[in-house]
């Protein structure tokens, strides 16, 4: 039961083969059994979950038109504010923070009737690509406990892959949904910037952050996107373009689909076995009616310097509110105001967060602003133009999510450049603001490989359709780590 799709669980709930309470209890006991090894959850909200499950069962009994998500146990990345549930951003800074309000994403999912099992581990303030930067400890990859699950939504990815929830929310600022989805062999979608409200999502880099679903299939992602997408008056950057029915055309044939393969995605640095898995996946699409076209995204290599100026710049300002004054961590016995600021922030933030705040502060400083921030913004426009031009010729763009499969825990912690290079294939999508998915596409060295599918602005329905057809033709997304097989 723990590796089934939302659609199949919804059917079972309606056929009374199981109840939401039963399902919830199953997942809670699996979390108890396995999460000691994985560390994918920071908070388990079992009482709230069981109450929600009871309510869902009542709703299912009374309402034939209840949302498909009713009674489905999910987890939320621990940067979505959840009313009455600890929300830490995996930081000591917020290790006592219980929000009195609900983020738009979680509140819309609640309205759809989901059961909240808990809050998942992540890189502190979403800064990281390995989920090793957490105040609550590293998350392990369920496929190999020696390896990282990816980041920053590593807890969500590991929990879905290990059957510790049906689906989870994640956020993606530079690849934080797609890369862990790739490393853990699940399906993840980063929507178009502005498709999903950021209200109540603790900001890392406001112009890049976007929430999205992480699940066992494209179809499950579609159901969750349906619940969370759409205009929100509380977020000025949220688009008022109408949402689509994301499952309506999910089965449409792919005949004549033009697939762009950017040559820059298959150059130096890409692991051979990963490359082979991606090429095989592309062949599968050709069988499904796709036509491949080689394209160029010439500014890809500039996405790393551009991102690592823009994101830290915004973060340096976004994280200023964590000052020990109103909520969160405050140091013991501050001497004076300056001492309180310095020690609260110095003790409350982890190393990576401090590093990015300092980088961003530097980049925005008088005399450096033009050379760093403005230049990075100009590069960002070039990257966007590359995509706009490409989508005049192709329907979707495909490539790897990451240059390698999941690496060993600790393998890159002392080499920040190598760690930042992990994001080479994902960053440009955030800089441009387009939607993209990670879809399981095979294995390399025993670890999952994710295929990245990128689409034009607001083409989520098309992406989900493309991914779903692939999943109808392949079974990579149904593979489970032994943790689940043994269940």
């Amino acid at each position, binding site marked *: 039961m723990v590796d089934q799709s939302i659609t199949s669980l919804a059917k079972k709930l309606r056929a009374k083969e199981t109840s939401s309470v039963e399902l919830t209890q199953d997942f809670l006991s699996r979390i108890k059994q396995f999460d000691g090894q994985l560390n994918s959850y920071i908070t388990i909200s079992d009482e709230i979950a069981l109450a929600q499950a009871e309510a869902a069962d009542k709703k299912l009994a009374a309402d034939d038109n209840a949302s498909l998500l009713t009674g489905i146990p999910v987890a939320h990345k621990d940067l979505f504010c959840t009313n009455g549930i600890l929300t830490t951003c995996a930081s000591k800074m917020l290790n006592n923070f219980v929000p009195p309000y609900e983020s738009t994403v979680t509140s819309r999912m609640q309205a759809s009737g989901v059961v909240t099992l808990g809050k998942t581990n992540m890189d502190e303030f979403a800064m990281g690509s390995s989920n090793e930067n957490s105040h609550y400890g590293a998350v392990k990859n369920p496929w190999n406990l020696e390896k990282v699950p990816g980041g920053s939504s590593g807890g969500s990815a590991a929990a879905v892959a290990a059957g510790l929830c049906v689906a989870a929310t994640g956020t993606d600022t530079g690849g934080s949904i797609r890369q862990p989805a790739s490393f853990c062999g699940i399906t993840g979608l980063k929507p178009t910037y502005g498709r999903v409200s950021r209200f109540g999502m603790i900001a890392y880099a406001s112009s890049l952050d976007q929430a999205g679903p992480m699940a066992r299939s494209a179809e499950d992602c579609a159901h969750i996107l349906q619940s969370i997408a759409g205009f929100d008056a509380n977020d000025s950057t949220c688009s008022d373009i109408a949402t689509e029915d994301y499952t309506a055309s999910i089965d449409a044939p792919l005949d004549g689909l033009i697939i762009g393969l950017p040559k820059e995605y298959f150059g130096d640095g890409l692991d051979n076995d990963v490359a082979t898995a991606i090429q095989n996946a592309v062949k599968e699409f050709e069988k499904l009616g796709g036509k491949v076209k080689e394209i160029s995204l010439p500014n890809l290599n500039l996405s790393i310097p551009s991102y690592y100026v823009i994101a830290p710049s*915004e973060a340096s300002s976004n994280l200023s509110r964590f000052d020990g004054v109103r*909520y969160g961590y405050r140091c013991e016995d501050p001497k004076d105001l300056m001492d309180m600021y310095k020690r609260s922030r110095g003790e409350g933030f982890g190393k990576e967060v401090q590093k990015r705040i300092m980088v961003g502060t530097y980049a925005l400083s008088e005399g450096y602003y033009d050379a760093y921030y403005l230049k990075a913004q100009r590069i960002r426009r070039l990257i966007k133009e590359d995509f706009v031009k490409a989508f005049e010729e192709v329907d979707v763009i495909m490539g790897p999510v990451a240059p390698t499969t999941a690496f060993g825990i600790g393998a890159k912690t002392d080499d920040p450049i190598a760690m930042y290079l992990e994001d080479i294939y994902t960053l440009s999508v955030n800089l441009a603001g387009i939607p993209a998915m990670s879809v399981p596409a095979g294995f390399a060295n025993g670890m999952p490989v994710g295929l990245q599918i990128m689409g034009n602005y607001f083409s989520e329905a098309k992406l989900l359709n493309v991914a779903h057809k692939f999943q109808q033709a392949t079974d990579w997304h149904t593979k489970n780590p032994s943790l689940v097989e043994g269940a």
Partner: protein
Amino acid sequence: MNWEVVIGLEIHAQLATKSKLFSGAAIGFGAEPNTNTTLVDLGMPGALPVFNKEALRMAVMFGAAVNAKIGMTSVFARKNYFYPDLPKGYQTSQMDHPIVGEGFLDITLDDGTVKRVGITRAHLEEDAGKSLHEDFQGMTGIDLNRSSTPLLEIVSEPDMRSAKEAVAYVKMIHSIVTYLGICDGNMAEGNMRCDINISLRPKGQAEYGTRTEIKNVNSFRFIERAIYTEIERQADILEDGGKITQETRLYDPDKDETRSMRSKEDANDYRYFPCPDLLPVELTQEYVDIIRNNLPELPTQKAERFMREYKLSEYDANVLSATRAMADYFEKVAEIAGNAKLAANWVMGELSKYLNTEGKDITESNVTSEQLGGLLVRIEDNTINGKTAKSVLQSMWEGEGSADQIIDAKGLKQVTDTGAIEEMIQGVLDANAAQVEQFRASDEDKQKKMIGFFMGQVMKASQGKANPGKVTPILNKLLKG
């Protein structure tokens, strides 16, 4: 040396919107601490700003009123610094692309000359909260009610050359924002406050001297005083061959001095950058035109109309149009009295005396425009004379009712009956027989001087109620015998 002072001003006007610049919280003075707040004003994690379009409309109104270019695309920027009452760790303001660009306004100085002052820009920004240092025994309380209250920061060119010019400029801005109804102009509550940039240079020198900035001065009088004391301080230093330090200073009205707050070296690097949580504000020409075409009458236009329509002097017209409340008061009195000149004299004269004595604004006057108008009607129809009217006004000020009520209650109605007046004059002459004798023996010049004595005695006898116009011919006739 002969120093020339150079002054530029930054005025913060709190916009009179119902809710805050970036949240739906109400704006109110004196509410319980931290009650007029939302997640946004408290700087809670994940809270996002939503721009209040009413503030936009008000800023554009101001721009149109000062002949300014309107920023068709304006951008909010974050000004980053740490302070306990700044909950987000940055103030959302505008930097490179303000809503109001270059403009100007004309001010009339005391000698009647008109001076044009350039306006560099005006931009929207949010206010911070308040730190409360009392009542917390070594700790500081934070009240975020004021957090995210909308401000329009109006920046002038360094065009002013004296304290008087600076005050005239601030008064004109005050007048414009209150006329537009975009700011209540209450300086005592800090709803309009002023930063003064001031430097000296030898007369005739083209480049500016080093300036200091005096922060948060909140009355016309303090602005004038602060400038005088700062000119004196800077001149003393320069005369002694010293150098002015570029710094921020505070004016202490109790000691009438400015003192250093922080120097340029300690100044924050605010790391401005465009706020990624807010989209650029795009305006259409139509939006701007509608606002421009519907501006209310502004002080200068009103003064011109007063001169044209009511034949007032330029000085009177300027005084009476200085604030919208004053202008409205005057026009109401003039309308009721049917005599604008008389209304002007009374509003600027007798009424202003009472207001000034009690330090009150026209909006706080004990006597309403209807009451004063009613009083003037009774002068116009000869029910009372001007002198009696003054005592009626005093009674009115003390809350004894309308002019007619007071005239009735005190029996102040003028005596106009010729027979009665003649009888009373005769009585006065009889009682002063010696003076009458003397009068009759004098030449015409001497008589003219003596007539005042008899006039005074008659008015005294009538308790001021005799109509002077009626008394004079009868008195003349009877005196001559």
